[in-house]
């Protein structure tokens, strides 16, 4: 119940295309869902986060879609660029958000081809 399942494991997208990464969870007590971007040799960097009271959140080219009934959420990267090539992790936590521990998905390695 503590798991967060992430797919796909890897993704290749052409420059200008849309990258879509999906996550699913079981524990309905989760109430905070962030996405992190990690470049090789660096720590994860917070991209965007959502709480279950909204179905979508957009920041620039990054959008989170949230489906509470299906217990799924996804990251959409519009107009994908080679600089977006990185590993993306979804995560979830409960009882107050990231001040509580985060459970991470397995990660998606994104390659954006020029």
């Amino acid at each position, binding site marked *: 119940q503590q798991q967060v399942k992430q797919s796909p494991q890897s993704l290749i997208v052409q420059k200008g295309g849309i990258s879509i990464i999906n996550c699913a969870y079981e524990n309905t007590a989760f109430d905070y869902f962030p996405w992190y971007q990690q470049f090789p*040799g660096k720590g994860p960097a*917070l991209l965007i986060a959502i709480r279950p009271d909204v179905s979508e959140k957009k920041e620039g080219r990054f959008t989170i879609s949230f489906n509470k009934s299906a217990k799924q959420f996804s990251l959409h990267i519009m107009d994908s660029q080679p600089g977006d090539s990185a590993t993306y*992790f979804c995560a979830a936590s409960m009882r107050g*958000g*990231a*001040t509580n*521990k985060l459970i*991470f998905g397995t990660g998606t390695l994104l390659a954006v081809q020029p």
Partner: protein
Amino acid sequence: SAVISQKPSRDICQRGTSLTIQCQVDSQVTMMFWYRQQPGQSLTLIATANQGSEATYESGFVIDKFPISRPNLTFSTLTVSNMSPEDSSIYLCSAATGEAFFGQGTRLTVV
């Protein structure tokens, strides 16, 4: 946001020795966390470190192996004790101020 500095950034250690990793945050934070990340893998939480109390360890991690200090609201250390090659990994410090931020990690190789 919070800026988190970790030291050392990498180290190569002999088996049986111990390494202490330092984590400094540029602002006071209530919650700090230590994660382990195998290369190409996801992050696994080792423990939660709150100032003024004992660290809370996740299943599979014990205080004797991974002692943690949290002397104030901006600093924490993680020690990897009696190291074996299986401890080779990236260790990440995180601080939460409503949202969670990460240091750049410490890449540990045990030989």
